[in-house]
């Protein structure tokens, strides 16, 4: 077949391409600096103001119960590298942080590993959905923290109970969002894939999974937020090392500066990982402009 007598560049083809060029955003050179400032400095303004308000509030009230930002910064340094107070907390951050990180991501990864396939099947298979979904919906409203006592019976007092809490907490948003994602796949896509010769299990990989990806990533993001929340709760009882344990110990010793330093580390860790998930999101979903974060 030759294409010489085809005319893809008929007048209309030109009007067609006009619409497509809208897809690529064009940044003019002018106003670039202002755009850069808006993008990178604007988000920093509010945290800095809060820091200032905190500092002023401590100074004006003269409270001894809450340390100033400066004291917390000093504690953070000591927590990380030691050499300031040289007590039990000095230079112990790395151990606590690493313990918490491995628990959070271990449990989170496990939750994702179980919840995504389960959500895919629940979403696609109506019989299985009728079998499992009511139970899930029944368990879901129970706050995961209420599982702590049972979890300690199941897994003993110690880090495993915390890991279980994180697993459970991350599991529900991931499985529910995955199910939702699968159920809202446009039926047309299954028809199109079937017509093109896609069958059986490869339909899962080639249509269901990519089509549900926006919801899956959304579930991962929600689950991840809950993970950090729960690891601290889980580590507060009967765990020796971990950020939650450090915060709890510091509370006993009235070391508020350590408490706040721990909070800062958790906040930063969660923030960085959330950015990583967002980067993953933008990479996996670059086809979908409305899912870019």
């Amino acid at each position: 077949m030759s294409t010489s007598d085809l005319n893809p560049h008929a007048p209309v083809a030109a009007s067609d391409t006009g619409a497509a060029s809208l897809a690529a955003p064009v940044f003019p050179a002018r106003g670039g600096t202002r755009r850069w400032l808006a993008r990178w400095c604007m988000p920093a303004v509010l945290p800095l103001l809060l820091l200032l308000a905190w500092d002023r509030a401590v100074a004006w009230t003269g409270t001894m119960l809450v340390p100033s930002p400066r004291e917390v910064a000093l504690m953070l340094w000591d927590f990380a590298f030691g050499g300031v107070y040289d007590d039990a907390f000095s230079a112990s951050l790395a151990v606590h942080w690493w313990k918490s990180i491995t628990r959070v991501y271990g449990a989170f990864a496990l939750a994702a590993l179980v919840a995504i396939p389960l959500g895919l099947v629940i979403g696609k298979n109506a019989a299985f959905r009728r079998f499992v979904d009511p139970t899930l919906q029944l368990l879901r409203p129970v706050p995961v923290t209420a599982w702590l006592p049972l979890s300690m019976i199941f897994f003993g007092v110690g880090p495993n109970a915390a890991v279980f809490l994180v697993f459970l907490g991350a599991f529900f948003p991931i499985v529910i969002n995955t199910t939702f994602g699968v159920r809202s796949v446009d039926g047309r896509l299954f028809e199109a894939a079937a017509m093109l010769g896609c069958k059986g299990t490869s339909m899962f990989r080639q249509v269901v999974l990519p089509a549900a990806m926006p919801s899956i990533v959304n579930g991962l993001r929600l689950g991840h937020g809950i993970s950090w929340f729960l690891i601290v709760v889980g580590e507060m009882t009967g765990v020796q090392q971990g950020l939650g344990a450090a915060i709890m110990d510091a509370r006993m010793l009235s070391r508020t500066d350590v408490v706040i330093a721990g909070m800062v580390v958790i906040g930063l860790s969660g923030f960085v990982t959330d950015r990583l998930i967002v980067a993953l999101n933008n990479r996996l979903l670059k086809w979908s402009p409305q899912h870019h974060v």
Partner: protein
Amino acid sequence: MSDLIKPRVPAPILDIANVSKVFDLNGRPIHALRDVNLQIQKGEFVCLIGASGCGKSTLLRIMGGFESVSTGSARLYHSAITEPGPERGMVFQDYGLFPWLTVRQNIGFGPRQRGLPQAQLKELTDHYLNMVGLTRFEAHYPSQLSGGMKQRVSIARVLANDCEVLLMDEPFGALDALTREALQKELLDIWKKTRLTVIFVTHAVEEAVLMADRVVVMTAGPGRVERDYTIPLERPRRITSPEFNQVRQELTDMLSSHVVHHARAH
């Protein structure tokens, strides 16, 4: 041999025999099609036309294997149509492109299912990208394309999958007039070169007269074939010619008389 004596009638590529389709609407049966008979020869361009609710889309979906028949039979080359398959390529009005695949990957989707080697896949998709004039947009995602471009991709995608019958469900209905005109012309060019069999559902009389060898007029309540009309015009056809206008008028009268008749009957 009897072949020498009898006039030879070629076997139809698509054979719809006494097909009825009953949908269940909250326990109430809805007759979408009743006793529909239609034979389509290889290489024919057939338009199904009729008011909404006449079952033209249902008939097309039966040919595609997306709906089953309630009674009767739908056959492609003597084998019953039971499920969708690559030999019957459907072009949907809403495109049905995979939004997470680029233009090139969408076109290559079918051949990839058959496990075509990379080099051949590249060659094949190159060919069809070029055929529909989207080579420059191979790396775009569907969300970045205009409606006309999306429909080009969905045509290229079934062509790349070696379909023998092109089933088109009001494919240009959602496009603006200029884009529609260009795509009609491109489709005719592709049909002329590939000699595919095309079944084209439309409700636009002018489109049917421009494109079709045969126009099958359907009426509603329940859906059935009212007339099978051969367009007596040479190709290429000119919309502005008096002959074209005459045929269009005839077909319009035929359609509107049924609509009036149908309205009175209820």
